[in-house]
């Protein structure tokens, strides 16, 4: 697996302004926390870091996708590919799963086979189920 380059965060001046609505981030945080109290400072930090994450995810997927092939539209596949490759995005594997097409599945099997794997009789039955 190729280790993705660590993406430097998009340059931007530090600021106390947030783009995302704090109330929504609070709701999201409460949905996971067993204790109720969330200080304003923590809420601010969480909002900022979620924003940073959005920038990071988009930027990294874009850089990763268009290093090999030209193109300008960031697609779902680019995201799922990045998620699949990046250790720190492992928590998203179920959230942004890789879609697999029949021909890709066959290609995968072919590669597996040439890499020395021997079970290839599932190629027909397994490949139909996905699309």
């Amino acid at each position, binding site marked *: 697996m190729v280790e993705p380059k*660590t*993406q*430097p*965060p*998009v340059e*931007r001046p*530090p600021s*106390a302004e947030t*783009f*995302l*609505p704090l109330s*929504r*981030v609070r*709701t*999201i*945080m*409460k*949905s*996971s*926390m*067993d*204790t109720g*109290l*969330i*200080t*304003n*400072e*923590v809420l*601010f*930090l*969480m909002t*900022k*870091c*979620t*924003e*940073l*994450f*959005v*920038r*990071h*995810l*988009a*930027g990294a*997927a*874009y850089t990763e996708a268009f290093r090999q092939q030209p193109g*300008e*539209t*960031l*697609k*779902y596949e*680019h*995201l*799922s590919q990045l*998620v699949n490759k990046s*250790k*720190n995005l492992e*928590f*998203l594997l179920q*959230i*942004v799963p890789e879609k697999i097409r029949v021909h890709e599945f066959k290609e995968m099997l072919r590669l597996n086979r040439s890499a020395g794997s021997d079970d290839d009789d599932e190629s027909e039955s397994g490949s139909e189920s996905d699309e």
Partner: protein
Amino acid sequence: MVERIEDLNLPNAVIARLIKESLPESASVSKEARAAIARAASVFAIFVTSSSTALAHKQNHKTITAKDILQTLTELDFESFVPSLMQDLEVYRKMVKDKKESKASKKDSSVAENANASATAAAEEAAE
């Protein structure tokens, strides 16, 4: 608490804007990709929150602090976020402090003598 699952979605327009800002100008984003990023962001927030909560509990704290979040980010392999978040936090803390001070000074000017008197009293108390 959360009544509808949509309450966990982040606003589309803001997400679109954040994405746009982090890509070159000529780039565009498919609808599906944008939806996936928005979903991922919500899950990220939940993930970091619950990890920070676990960290706080481990230290016998009931609620999470800014420090818990920053430490969690490092542990989750997002340490590249930490420096700029620390800068943001600094700006935020200064803003909160300034707000407090300007509020206090407003109060001071209206009841200047009272405030002064109590401040002196407090100082004396502290000295003892």
